[in-house]
């Protein structure tokens, strides 16, 4: 293990991934961590997702291994924060409050197929997942009706994934960030990175509107803006925005008990199509509202509300829960996922620019994968053996450095 004594780290981005990385490094000891964000903490992609901590939507491979590591770390991290240092940044007993606000809910996921082809695909997918250590239990019609009384009777297969969990994502980022600050990290918001200062080919400082900020290493955790940020620093990576929209219903009495989604979802997550993909993802929040997703579109940073997208989400959700037709939708929100063409996160040092590291490209899974990503990053920075193989996430792979799209970089 390399000696880290006094290593200055600047984490660029105060979303969930930046917060998790800052916390992991602050806890590791030897690092002086500063988190920088041009907006506020947890305001962008982190605040616009559903808070998924999922293993069910991932087939065997590196992303599933990262998801499994993260899923194990979530309860550990929350327990550690709740018993955190007295007089933390959240105030006396504030850390326990911060953890309560995270609304950690290991509610489990249920995947429902509504066609024969979908059922076959789902069963095959689950068999592969089981071989990789995922718990996936077949539900017969009675078991499904008992678990989700309002779900459609018109289904061909259903699987229960007890490991799936949900958090309130902005609160989760706030709790991680609060713990990082309690362990000595500092937060600077409203400060945009404009460019790089290099010496001998090494990144030594970032130029900001408020002057230069020097450090020994910099972590690009800017989510869908990582591509542009990296370009400003002189080492572009191909991370692009992929838009998603969510509908929020008025508060309901308990109606949906798990994260319930249709078997198409896995296909939509794994697809690379630019045009609109929708699939039903339905779940309740602790506030009683029901969140309805999901959509995927690659249209740059276009934040317009598109009624036809919302209509498609509503129609798919009603296929799973026909009884929700009379429920009012009171809000819709959208966000941008950090998309990489090969659907794998980018975690590690940038070989082109020493001093620059990346922790980005998690697409729609960044909330869940944040803790595993941070743990992996810490081990790579310290030169210790990581728990899982980091090679699939390396920066110098064709999907990340290959076909950069300048038009979207400047979008």
């Amino acid at each position, binding site marked *: 293990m390399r000696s880290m004594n006094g290593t200055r780290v600047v984490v660029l981005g105060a979303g969930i991934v930046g917060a998790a990385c800052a916390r992991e490094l602050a806890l590791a000891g030897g690092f002086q961590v500063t988190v920088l964000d041009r907006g506020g903490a947890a*305001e*962008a992609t982190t605040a616009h997702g559903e808070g998924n901590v999922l293993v069910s939507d991932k087939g065997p491979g590196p992303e599933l291994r990262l998801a499994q590591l993260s899923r194990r770390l979530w309860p550990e991290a929350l327990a550690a924060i709740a018993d955190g240092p007295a007089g933390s940044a959240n105030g006396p007993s504030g850390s326990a409050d*911060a953890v309560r606000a995270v609304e950690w809910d290991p509610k489990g996921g249920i995947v429902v197929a509504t066609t024969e082809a979908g059922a076959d695909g789902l069963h095959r997918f689950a068999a592969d997942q089981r071989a990789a250590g995922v718990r996936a239990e077949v539900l017969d019609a009675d078991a499904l009706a008992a678990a989700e009384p309002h779900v459609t009777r018109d289904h061909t297969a259903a699987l229960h994934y007890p490991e799936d969990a949900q958090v309130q994502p902005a609160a989760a980022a706030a709790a991680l960030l609060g713990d990082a600050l309690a362990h000595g990290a500092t937060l600077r918001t409203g400060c945009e990175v404009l460019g790089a200062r290099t010496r001998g080919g090494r990144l030594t400082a970032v130029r900001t509107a408020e002057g230069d900020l020097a450090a020994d290493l910099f972590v690009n955790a800017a989510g869908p803006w990582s591509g542009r940020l990296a370009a400003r620093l002189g080492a572009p990576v191909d991370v692009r925005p992929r838009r998603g929209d969510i509908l929020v*219903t008025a508060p309901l009495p308990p109606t949906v008990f798990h994260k319930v989604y249709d078997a198409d979802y896995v296909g939509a997550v794994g697809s690379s199509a630019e045009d609109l993909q929708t699939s039903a993802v339905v779940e309740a929040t602790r506030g009683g509202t029901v969140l309805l997703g999901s959509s995927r579109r690659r249209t740059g940073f276009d*934040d317009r509300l598109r009624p036809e997208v919302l209509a498609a989400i509503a129609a798919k959700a009603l296929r799973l829960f026909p009884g929700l037709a009379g*429920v*009012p939708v009171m809000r819709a929100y959208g966000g941008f996922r950090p998309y990489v063409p090969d659907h794998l996160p980018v975690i590690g040092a940038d070989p082109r620019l020493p001093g620059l590291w990346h922790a980005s490209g998690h697409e729609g899974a960044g909330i869940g994968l944040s803790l595993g990503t941070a743990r992996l990053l810490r081990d790579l920075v310290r030169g210790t053996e990581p728990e899982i193989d980091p090679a699939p996430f390396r920066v110098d792979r064709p999907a990340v450095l290959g076909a950069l799209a300048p038009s979207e970089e400047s979008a």
Partner: protein
Amino acid sequence: MTVRQVVVIGAGPAGLAAAASALAAGAAVTLLDAAERPGGQYHRMLPEEYGAARPGRLHHGWAAFERLRRRVLGHPRCTWLAETAVWALERPEPGHPGLPLVHTLTGPADGTDRPRRTLAPDALVLAPGAHDRVLPFPGWELPGVYAAGAAQALAKGERLVIGDDVLLAGSGPFLLPVAAALLEAGAGVRAVLEANPPRTVARGWARRPWELAEQPGKAAELAEYTALLAHRRVPYRMGRTVIEARGDGRVEEAVTARLRPDWSVIPGSEVTVAVDALCVSHGFSPQLELPLAAGCALLRSPAGEFVAVDGDQLTSCPGVYAAGEITGIAGAPAARTEGALAGWLAGGGDPATPALRRVRRNRDRGRAFAARLAAAHPVGSAWPGWLRPETVICRCEETDYGTLCRAATEEAGAAPRVAKLATRAGLGPCQARICGPTVAELTARLSGNSPGCPADGLPVAAPHRRPIAQPIRLGELASSPAPSEPDTKESTA
């Protein structure tokens, strides 16, 4: 040549005037409003089934309004869509010209399976109006405490008596017509309390006397209300307000106190009075969700945020005009002149028409009136001094002041978006229509920092941002809209 299609959203004084002048300019007009009948809050009409013998009672300018309503609704180029809500405005693709598409739902607000429709206008006039702003105080959530506008609507629209011993408090001349409507409907009014001291009110109205633009109609109207209050021996007190409501299950007592000019309470001035209803109004919040959805720039003024318009009532979005209270709170006469100007230009009328000169002059007077109104009846900055940690701020989610204070002082929670999510303030069924401006103001003050620049594509957290402007049922959303604007085409005979 095809006829220019103008969509007018809102059929209050501004929208009705806009529709009339767009028709006069030769355009085809689709006028829509969430209510069953035109008139807005100002000319709120009794439902037809009441068969009122004198529907114009309690109404100013009733005969003129009736004539205008008949002329507009009966016009062959006008399509009137009653009980129609705009649930979304869809902007064109960035960099592409064109107007937002107007997505509507027609039917009672609590209905189901309301048909959806999509209108593609050549010009759009936004005239959605404003609703009461009510500042929170301990006990304001008790039954029997009304927003003044709601009490007025009950009196004007249903002739309902809200109490025998009613106290009105807040700020602004709107308290007077509300008091008059309550008296006319048979309620007992104990007093009207204006929170601002006489000096503030007098200075505000007397400011810039060289542009002493009379609003003759408005002045006469106010004089009439004042005379009515005097006749009924209802005292009008300045520099005093209600700082607390008390009661077991409904309001039974109000605590009033004298205020300094900044609305801090003068210690020892508190008086407890028995009441059976309380009406409060601290000004108005413009309904900004549609202008924001259209992409219109806002203007921050001492009286709050409004839609920025140029001398032609044109917003920052080409083809999108704004009229009435969303450009500044100035009352019905000013709203009418703004609507008349906006409608004429939206309808393709000649901007050089001599008659427009008078309309513009009247509109400018309306703006001057709005500035005076804002100066005479400001909201004092010390009002949060009335609050206690347990005072409810967001009624839908029952978020109290203490929770907001804690959220705002957490370092990691300092961003308004995170604070909002963590406290749930503004996330309930009313979607921050009531508490939004208050929560935004309190959060900004408590955290003392301004948020950083918003990320690309993501809008600034704004209390008025509601991409779904009106609730829509899932089944309605999933159904396909009716073919585009059948009515407007049909009526273009």
